[in-house]
């Protein structure tokens, strides 16, 4: 009994997680990876709040008479929209995965402005506190679109407080975008040319352009809204000579491009997932890369398709309709290129790839129904019906949330250094897919049959479809809770992940340990091959006019 063999204590190599455990090391960190985790936990919290409002809505809609009062229901869908759009979808992939991965993917030690990065998180939290304060102190009932003059003159809820929350959170988005643009321009490792950038980075570059150019417009619009609510000078009030359509123009000038803020990063994730699990290079790299930029640019000129029935001129409507069709082209290029990438690839069905399959199918439905809505004659019939709700949920939830979950699973080993339980993950992916379709497909039918959005009650013939939708929502909810549980478990108890569990390409897998050290790499990476070089072939031709090296050490 006297001999005690001491297990030799193996010191885990220093990484960004175990370098310090104090709360100050988190709240005052400037490490982009830790800030990404701060965002991860906070947006998950907001997702649950926004989800709770959705649950309440679906409970209400399970019966034709409703459970809550009309006023309560108005507040529910408003808070659901505001929390989900401004506090979950807009920051989701950029602020979590983009923040974590962009510096590693381009071979940098951090983003260009680490302190501004931390500041953006604090700004986000302050904005979120405003919004939650408004939500739990009586709520707001204008719809997430804040349309005037209802929001400026008639609503007696917390419009200003909520608008300030969105205004403040907007600056967080601006600062994230600014940081990404400068980082991608100035921080690339030697050899990391623009045409060797992972498509995830291209997608975030395009996203950042929209964040930087669009967000200030919603900021000033909300300032004018708040001032108008205080002063009642009538700037958006038709009763005293103001123009409510002007508010809609200003609002959608940001909020339509913001839709692309919410989907482009998901498309970036998709390019990574599809190539890795097909063991093939991307089909048509430059098309996928520049389609992101095309979406960002053209996306700024389509906002008027939200105003087809608002009194906009017929000629403006025609032009906006045409442009809306054009913006679908680059999105379609992406979908075709992903499927072409899979063609003759050796596809494996790991969890991230299941989400990628889900994305392609659901995003295609969401995108094509978008074209139906961009057709003026059809839009007159479908405006403000459940068809619109189903359309953008297919893009936002079927697209972005699928990509977000796929991305979280794909990079989970890198972020935490642990593997998640594959079987549970596959099961959850399936539940999410089934639940999602059961929730939102009936809403296409409801909309087609004429069920308007934002109504707390409905005629009895719609009940079957509404009950199907509510049942689907409960399945979808389960599908979201399962990953929450097993990922939390795996973070502490999961088996240790190797550096590159997927045998994937990219600096984050090939050069950075799991989890990475504070400065990401043990030695400065030098890039010598194109992105997604799964075939291992040397670069055939110089992609773009001779630019051989990244800006660093040029």
């Amino acid at each position, binding site marked *: 009994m006297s001999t005690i063999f001491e297990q030799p204590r193996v010191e885990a190599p220093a990484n960004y997680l175990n370098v310090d455990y104090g709360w100050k090391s988190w709240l005052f960190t400037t490490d982009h990876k830790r800030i990404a985790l701060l965002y991860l936990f906070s947006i998950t919290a907001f997702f649950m709040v926004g989800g709770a409002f959705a649950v309440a809505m679906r409970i209400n809609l399970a019966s034709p008479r409703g459970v809550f009062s009309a006023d309560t229901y108005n507040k529910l869908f408003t808070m659901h929209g505001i929390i989900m759009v401004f506090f979950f979808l807009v920051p989701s992939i950029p602020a979590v995965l983009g923040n974590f991965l962009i*510096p590693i993917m381009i071979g*940098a*030690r*951090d*983003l*260009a*402005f*680490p302190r*501004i990065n931390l500041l953006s998180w604090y700004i986000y939290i302050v904005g979120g506190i405003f919004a939650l304060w408004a939500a739990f102190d009586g709520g707001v009932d204008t719809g997430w679109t804040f349309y005037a003059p209802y929001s400026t003159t008639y609503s007696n809820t917390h419009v200003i407080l909520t608008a300030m929350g969105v205004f403040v959170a907007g600056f967080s988005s*601006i600062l994230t975008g*600014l*940081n990404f*643009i*400068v980082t991608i*321009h*100035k*921080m690339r490792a030697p050899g990391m040319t623009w045409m060797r950038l992972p498509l995830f980075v291209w997608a975030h570059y395009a996203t950042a352009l929209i964040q*930087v*150019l*669009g*967000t*200030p*417009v919603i*900021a*000033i*619009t909300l*300032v*004018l809204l708040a*001032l*108008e609510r*205080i*002063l*009642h*000078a*009538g*700037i958006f009030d038709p009763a*005293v*000579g*103001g*123009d409510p359509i*002007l508010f809609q*123009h*200003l609002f959608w*000038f940001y909020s339509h491009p913001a839709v692309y803020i919410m989907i482009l990063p998901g498309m970036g994730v998709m390019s990574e997932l599809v190539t890795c699990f097909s063991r093939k290079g991307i089909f048509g790299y430059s098309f996928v890369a520049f389609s992101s930029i095309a979406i960002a640019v053209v996306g700024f000129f389509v906002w008027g398709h939200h105003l087809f029935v608002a009194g906009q001129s017929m000629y403006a409507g025609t032009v906006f309709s045409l442009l809306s069709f054009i913006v679908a082209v680059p999105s379609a290029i992406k979908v075709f290129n992903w499927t072409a990438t899979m063609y003759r690839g050796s596809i494996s069905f790991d969890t991230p790839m299941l989400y990628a399959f889900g994305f392609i199918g659901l995003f295609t439905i969401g995108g094509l129904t978008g074209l139906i809505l961009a057709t003026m004659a059809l839009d007159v019939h479908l405006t403000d019906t459940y068809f619109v709700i189903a359309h953008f949920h297919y893009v936002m939830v079927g697209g972005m949330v699928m990509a977000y979950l796929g991305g979280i699973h794909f990079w989970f080993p890198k972020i935490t250094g642990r593997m998640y339980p594959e079987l549970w993950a596959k099961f959850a992916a399936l539940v999410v897919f089934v639940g999602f379709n059961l929730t939102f497909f009936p809403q296409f039918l409801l909309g087609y049959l004429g069920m308007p959005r934002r109504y707390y009650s409905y005629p009895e013939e719609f009940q079957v479809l509404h009950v199907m939708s509510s049942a689907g929502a409960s399945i979808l909810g389960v599908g979201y809770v399962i990953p929450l549980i097993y990922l939390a478990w795996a973070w502490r108890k999961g088996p240790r992940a190797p550096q590159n569990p997927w045998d994937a390409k990219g600096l984050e897998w090939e050069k950075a340990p799991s989890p990475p050290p504070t*400065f990401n790499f043990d030695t400065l990476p030098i890039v010598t091959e194109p992105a997604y070089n799964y075939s291992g072939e040397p670069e055939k031709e110089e992609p773009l006019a001779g630019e051989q090296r990244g*800006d*660093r*050490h040029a």
Partner: protein
Amino acid sequence: MAIATHNERLRHHFDTAEQQEESSTLGMWVFLLTEIMFFGGMFGAYTVYRNMYPDAFASTSRFMNITLGAINTVVLITSSLTMALAVRSAQLGVKRALILFLVLTLLLGCIFLGVKVVEYHEKWVDHHIPGPGFRYDDARYFRQAQILFFLYFAMTGMHALHMIIGAGLLATLIIMARRDRFSAAWHTPVEMIGLYWHFVDIVWIFLFPLLYLIGRTR
């Protein structure tokens, strides 16, 4: 273990001082881009209402104090000159000139804000501040005039807010300069805040003709 060539101004994630400097400059320009879009929303609203109510607009422009506006324009352009000279002094590493020009810029900025207060006070006395107390002599244009004064206050107010922030930044620069924080080798904050100051000036260069000069009837 200190590295011999370690530059205390070079932050850990940059390789070279040039890279750091270029990043700051690009970041500032991107930020100014967001500012253009921010003011752009108001300029857009201005354009819409000016086209909608040209007569009411001509009527309100009589109440803009063109003398004070012109004085402020001169003050602000001069402050841009002193700011440019401050940046030049920083590049040359002349501390005394740097502080002098920064103080002058700050002073001119404060004069601008002081004149603005006088103008706002005039509007207050005339009951031209939008809201319940708003009055307008020409009954035909009462409602439209209120909207146009709303835009006047929103645009010049937002501009003044940027001036106040700029003044705070200048004060910070003066303190930093007094503590010998800048040298010919490193003076990025002076350059960045210089860019910001020029931008705020340019906004006024657009505001002055649009609000005071165009469509003036008398």
